[in-house]
């Protein structure tokens, strides 16, 4: 119904009612669909004339026609029917559904609806049902695997975490590379405020993207505009494509209440595997064999004790007969445990027991109503989630209202408003930081700890009781806090209160000529606070960030739509202007030197002056734009557009930039009258898009720092700004072919595109001896070329049983063609430890991880040094790009009577990530591989060859005299070498296959509901991310190597495990 409804709107807006008055009889009747439901808005035309009417909201029509006339009934999404007018005055018509729906209407740039077949570019629209059937609370995550050319990366285990969305590859070096998100015409901010250190995996919190605020249940459709041609009218901000979301609205002549309730559960899916044979201890990396317990004499008794001062697991082998004092045996306050030895065994409750089953409860209700003149919809939705890390919670409540009314025949007004409150409590820290429990679980920790026992994390006097004591006498945390201390005392909070809305009017000057005027507002306040309690291993601290964002757009457009030459030629033209004003403010404070009074989390409670960051930003863009679309005989289509932007962020001489686009299509099935071919279309488009930049990059200013002995410190920042910037440019073209066979039961759509972005405004890194680390320049040229394919097959289509298969595929080739002359690489980020970096390198795909490599002989064997460990290249080398080679989605859906079943398989091939957990998990003896094959007792012989290696100055080398390596090294030394040795040991392919969604639904038969007043009831069970396979390293889901939605990707620094979700939902329509 949604597609149908939007079609009605289109027709209402575009169709010109022309009634001729002649001496004829009145023919009337009702038009219904296959199910007998009345169809409003059906075109009823006297064939061969321009006489026509539309059916009303009950499907009734009335038209003057002669007895010899033929009436043509047409409606988008239905097969056109013709009925001769007989002597009877009543003609009731049933229109059959055109299941192929190739006349689908899609929402294009600036909210203009278009017949899909008229578009000269690829477009894939998902309706709300497709997005909500697996009940993901983040609407954007639901795109994963569904749309060719859309790459989604999200760590499922991170409660409400960031979602990286890339459409057709990366087009900019340092700007966001995020698509524009538009909800009912409102450009919706989708910022991510994760710290740089969170993004690189060095540690922090993931507070997600602000695009999380969209309520999935309010979405009627989501159209992904991937290419330049599709998005050109949006101008510079849609440089990376656009996602156009249309929300549900009331239906004319119908009142409906929809109630939705669901519950879902989340459990761990992929988690690093831990060895279960040896417990904590420092070990000895110089010997093969296991270490022993420490001994301590307490009150005259000598005990075996665990080495609690170390945070590694190279300790003695488990032995139920060995009695030792565990970490909790040193506190007289706990008499049961005090000096009470326990056996040395793998714990009953291990790390995995620390995690909870996440629970998410979703409730929503929507009221919609429509009269002849007005429609409205009101919805209220609440989702309460508890994450897998105990005590982590995320609530989202949204209220959405929209309405539209026709004040007169010519004037209509509409308004929509959405209020969303996203409230997070105790979102887990991740990465290599003290508050990240992952650090102590898999990087530096002890494996024998029983997590049930760790729950006693406090002494009666309130001080912490951790397993990682400084010494027997001193229980102060050495390196690591008790994980229950962390989640109870060092919690984070965040809250975003947001409203966005629009108000607009449409006025018809004549039947062909109308104007629209709109105002769009998006505003939020986002507050984040994190804390480290007094008594933690780290100095106590309070951090608070308060960010305010406002964007207002004013838009006015004049439209002219007319048909010529007996409706053979259609023209849709419009021209308009937009003013955009964006303001952003941030006030961020952090205590310094600790908290004066414990447990008072206030910036004024700082030992030293708190660090304050006060940031304000304002940007304006003025635009004018125009578009003209021509359609000839439902067969040939052409659209030209142009837009000029004036941006406040560019210097006066260069701040105006114009960019055109042209696209067209030819529906060749109209001329090729072949039975086997149901539909055929070729299309092509070319577009240029200009782009501005962030504010304040034109001149150098001074930065202030914390005062030094009372003297304010200013210094020249290390970035050299540029007063001569000019706009970035993107040139794109694409061609596509769509065909449908066998009554459209087999359809495909393929696209080839080629995009070049150049003059990229980039802070290019330079030699620091220039006085700067980077200089802002129009530097860089990136190329993206790719293929997208979509295939739909309907092997079975009967009244009772349907089977549909959808397969989508996208391959993108990305290459950085140039930076500044003489500059060949640009560091995007530095991953924690060992100088491993993420880079843009000329001649390579974007996002190359660089670090030292193995040394290989001519046959590709890894060369082992005299010490029995892999050699390492002296220079850093390119270890692969984080971008995948290709992505594929495969959906099957079945319907049998009232049952439906669907599943989606999503795969990625290629791309790499680097794992810090792999480094430390080996170093510390925690990972399963550090105790596999009895290596602690027997030592390790790494697979490779020995040989003579001579290095040249330029880093190249030759290897001679190779022989199989036979050197045995102690397991601990081998484990430590993941840190000391080459970086490529910790870089893995990001390939995966995932069973992304499974849904099973049952809709109660209509007859059961009878006259209960209930229109429909649907139960569904669903699962997300149920299975993962095809991994390079089974300890990690490659999607966890993301700490934000920006360009910094591919670093696993201590990520939460990925999860699977399953649940139940019921939807009732009244």
């Amino acid at each position, binding site marked *: 119904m949604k597609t149908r409804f939007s079609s009605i709107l289109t027709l209402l807006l575009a169709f010109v009612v022309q009634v001729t008055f002649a001496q004829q009889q009145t023919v009337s009747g009702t038009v219904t669909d296959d199910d007998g439901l009345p169809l409003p808005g059906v075109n009823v035309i006297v064939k061969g004339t321009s006489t026509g009417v539309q059916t009303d909201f009950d499907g009734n029509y009335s038209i003057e026609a002669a007895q010899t006339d033929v009436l043509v009934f047409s409606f988008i999404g239905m097969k056109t029917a013709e009925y001769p007018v007989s002597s009877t005055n009543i003609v009731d018509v049933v229109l059959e559904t055109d299941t192929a729906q190739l006349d689908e209407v899609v929402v294009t740039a600036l909210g203009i609806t278009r017949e899909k077949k008229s578009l000269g570019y690829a477009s894939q629209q998902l309706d709300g049902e497709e997005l909500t059937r697996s009940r993901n609370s983040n609407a954007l995550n639901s795109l994963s695997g569904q749309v060719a050319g859309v790459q989604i990366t999200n760590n499922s285990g991170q409660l409400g975490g960031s979602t990286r969305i890339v459409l057709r590859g990366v087009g900019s070096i340092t700007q966001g590379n995020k698509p524009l998100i538009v909800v009912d015409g409102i450009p919706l901010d989708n910022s991510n405020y994760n710290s740089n250190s969170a993004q690189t995996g060095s540690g922090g919190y993931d507070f997600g993207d602000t695009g999380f605020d969209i309520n999935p249940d309010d979405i009627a459709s989501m159209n992904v505009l991937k290419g330049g041609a599709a998005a050109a009218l949006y101008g510079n901000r849609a440089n990376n494509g656009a996602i156009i979301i249309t929300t549900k609205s009331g239906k004319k002549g119908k009142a409906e209440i929809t109630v939705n309730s669901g519950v879902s559960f989340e459990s761990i899916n992929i988690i690093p595997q831990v060895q279960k044979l040896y417990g904590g201890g420092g070990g000895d990396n110089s010997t093969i064999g296991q270490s022993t317990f420490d001994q301590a004499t307490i009150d005259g008794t000598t005990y075996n004790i665990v080495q609690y*001062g*170390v945070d590694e697991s190279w300790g003695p082998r488990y032995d139920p007969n060995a009695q030792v004092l565990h970490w909790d045996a040193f506190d007289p306050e706990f008499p049961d445990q005090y000096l009470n030895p326990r056996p040395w065994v793998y714990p009953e409750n291990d790390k995995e027991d620390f995690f909870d089953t996440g629970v998410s409860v979703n409730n929503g209700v929507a009221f919609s109503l429509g009269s002849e003149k007005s429609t409205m919809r009101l919805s209220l939705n609440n989702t309460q989630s508890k994450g897998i890390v105990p005590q982590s919670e995320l609530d989202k409540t949204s209220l959405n209202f929209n309405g539209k009314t026709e*004040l007169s025949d*010519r*004037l209509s007004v509409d308004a929509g408003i959405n209020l969303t409150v996203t409230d997070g409590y105790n979102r887990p820290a991740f990465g290599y930081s003290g508050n990240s429990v992952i650090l102590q679980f898999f990087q530096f920790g002890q494996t024998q700890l029983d997590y049930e026992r760790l729950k006693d994390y406090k002494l009666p006097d309130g001080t912490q009781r951790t397993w990682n004591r*400084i010494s027997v006498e001193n229980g102060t945390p050495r390196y690591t806090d008790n994980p229950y201390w962390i989640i109870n005392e060092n919690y984070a909070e965040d809250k975003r209160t947001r409203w966005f809305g629009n108000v607009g009017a449409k*006025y018809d000057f004549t039947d062909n000529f109308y*104007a629209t*005027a*709109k105002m769009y507002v998006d505003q939020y306040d986002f507050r984040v606070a994190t804390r480290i309690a007094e008594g933690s291993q*780290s*100095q106590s601290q309070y951090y608070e960030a308060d960010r305010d964002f406002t964007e207002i757009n*004013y*838009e*006015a457009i004049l439209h002219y739509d007319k048909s010529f030459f007996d409706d053979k030629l259609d023209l849709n033209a419009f021209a308009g*202007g*937009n*003013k955009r004003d964006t303001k952003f403010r941030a006030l961020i404070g952090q205590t*310094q030197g600790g908290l004066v009074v414990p447990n008072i989390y206030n910036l004024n409670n700082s*030992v*030293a002056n708190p660090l304050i960051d006060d940031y*304000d930003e*304002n*940007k*304006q863009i*003025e635009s004018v734009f125009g578009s003209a679309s021509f359609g000839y005989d439902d067969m040939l289509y052409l659209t030209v557009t142009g837009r000029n932007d*004036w*941006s*406040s*962020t560019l*210097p006066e001489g260069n*701040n105006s930039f114009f960019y055109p686009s042209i696209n067209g299509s030819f529906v060749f099935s109209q001329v090729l009258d072949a039975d086997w071919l149901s539909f055929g279309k070729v299309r092509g488009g070319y577009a240029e898009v200009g782009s501005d930049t962030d504010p304040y990059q034109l001149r*150098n*200013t*001074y930065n202030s*720092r*914390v*005062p*030094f*002995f009372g*003297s304010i*410190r*200013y*210094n020249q920042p*290390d970035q*050299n700004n540029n007063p001569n910037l000019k706009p970035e440019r993107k040139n794109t073209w694409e061609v596509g072919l769509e065909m449908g066979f066998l009554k459209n039961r087999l359809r495909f759509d393929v696209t080839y595109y080629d995009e070049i972005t150049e003059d990229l405004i980039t802070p290019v*890194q*330079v030699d*620091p*001896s*220039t*006085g*700067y*680390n980077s*200089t802002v320049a129009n530097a860089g040229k990136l190329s993206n070329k790719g293929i997208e394919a979509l295939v739909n097959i309907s092997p079975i289509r009967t009244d009772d049983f349907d089977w549909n298969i959808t397969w989508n595929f996208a391959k993108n080739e990305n290459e950085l063609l140039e930076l500044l002359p*003489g500059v060949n690489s640009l560091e995007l980020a530095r991953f924690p430890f060992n*100088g491993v*970096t993420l880079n843009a390198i000329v001649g390579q795909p974007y996002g190359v991880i660089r670090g030292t490599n193995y040394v290989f002989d001519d046959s590709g064997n890894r060369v082992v040094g005299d010490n029995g460990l892999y050699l390492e290249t002296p220079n*850093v080398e390119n270890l692969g790009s984080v971008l995948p080679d290709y992505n594929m989605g495969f959906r099957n859906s079945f319907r049998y009577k009232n049952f439906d079943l669907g599943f989606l398989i999503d795969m990625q091939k290629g791309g790499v990530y680097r794992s810090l957990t792999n480094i430390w998990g080996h170093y510390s003896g925690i990972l399963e591989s550090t105790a596999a094959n009895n290596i602690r007792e027997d030592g390790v012989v790494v697979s490779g060859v020995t040989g003579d290696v001579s290095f040249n*100055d330029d880093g190249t080398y030759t290897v001679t005299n190779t022989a199989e390596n036979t050197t045995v090294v102690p397991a601990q030394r081998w484990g430590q070498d993941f840190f000391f040795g080459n970086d490529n040991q910790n870089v893995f392919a990001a390939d995966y296959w995932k069973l992304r969604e499974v849904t099973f639904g049952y809709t109660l038969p209509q007859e059961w509901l009878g006259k209960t007043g209930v229109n429909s009831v649907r139960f569904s069970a669903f699962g997300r991310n149920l299975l993962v396979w095809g991994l390079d390293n089974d300890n990690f889901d490659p999607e966890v190597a993301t700490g934000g939605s920006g360009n910094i990707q591919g670093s696993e620094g201590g990520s939460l495990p990925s999860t699977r979700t399953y649940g139940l939902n019921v939807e009732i329509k009244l």
Partner: protein
Amino acid sequence: MNKIKGLALALFAMLISLTSCEGEWIDSELNIDPDAPSDVPMNLLLPGIQQSMGYNLMGNNSVRTNNIWMQIFDGVSRQSFTEARYQLTPADVNNLWINTYTEMMMNTTILVQKSRMEGSESPHYTGIGQVMQATTLGITTDLFGDVPFSDAFEGSRGNLTPVYDEQQKVYDTIFTLLDNAVPNLNSSENTFAVSGDVIYGGNLAKWEKAANSIKARHYLQLSNVLGNEAYTKALAAAQDGFESNADDYLVPFEDSNRNPIFQFMEQRGDIRMGATLVDLLVSNDDPRLEFYVEANGDGEFVGSEIGSQNESASAPGPAIAGTDQAVKLMTYSELKFIEAEAHFRLGQTTEAQAAYEAAVAASLLRVTGEDQSDWIASNLPGMTLESILTQKYIDGVGTNQPYADWRRTGLPSLELAPGAVTSSIPTRFPYAQNELDYNRANVPTVTITDKVWWDQ
């Protein structure tokens, strides 16, 4: 009907006018950052440079590593243990290099340029800038050898690949900067009086002594190149150098800017005191022991033997890693050691002995806060070249000088760490990764066991 039509037209016209303000189509003033000034007075630049010199040049990225190599510290785990095995990659020194060039030397260059602004010449600021620049450049070239300077700091004018100056030329530049600083500091015409000077509180006489002392340091450093000339020139410069501990060239720290080694110990803590130093202190009952070395968990003063990863050894003590412990750009005691060595080399034993004793006395007084003449009388080792340099080594804990002196003299003699990845203790730092990445054509090819020019 017409009313509505009129209203619609008015509304539309209003929106059109909102989107297109005549004349001021786009306001370029909007792009002026409201939070950051485009210019600041010199007194606001000065403290930032000084803080960075203390934190980065002395504290964190340079001293920590080379004091591990000098066995003053020992790296017992993680990255510090790597460094203890002499693995130091271009990426490891990136922060040091970046801070040195973009924070210290670039901002000092701007400071000096401002101080010469026509109409408001302020040679006192010029002189301070020159002394700071020479100090930073001196430590930098001692670690890296040939470095960019004469062609550097021109990034905003488009010079993105500065050529390297040979170390000999860099040394000439250091001496020129210091020679020019003295008349500037003494200039009678000066527009803006110095303020914001955390190091000397605007005391120009002390800056002048610092200029001469730094000059003495670098003349002595040329002993292998110039022979006796190095000693005579060092002594000549020392004449007008520091006169007591009160003249020490120190960067202090405070709660909101805590001592860099303190911060390192707090955040990563992977170093302990080295056994070589601790044993020297213990065996000679040196009163500096408890100031340099913190008692370990067992209440003992234990150093970590190189390569032993002894995490239960003692951590650095309050004179090194106290929260607000100042770091030493140069001290009176170092100047006295310079004089002692120079006199000794020139055969002037009496003067050498006096300077040697004065040096150790100054060191003890500075570290312990008490006069230690009794200990000097009974425990001071007899004067030899080795004892002068060993005492200078003890005094120079937490600075770059022990490493510079050891390379020049081989004293005190140190053993190669077990598990070393190099065949000898490194004799220089590698060039930074950013240099290799962005200015490769100009960067000399070196390994960390190569020697800088004055070390040949």
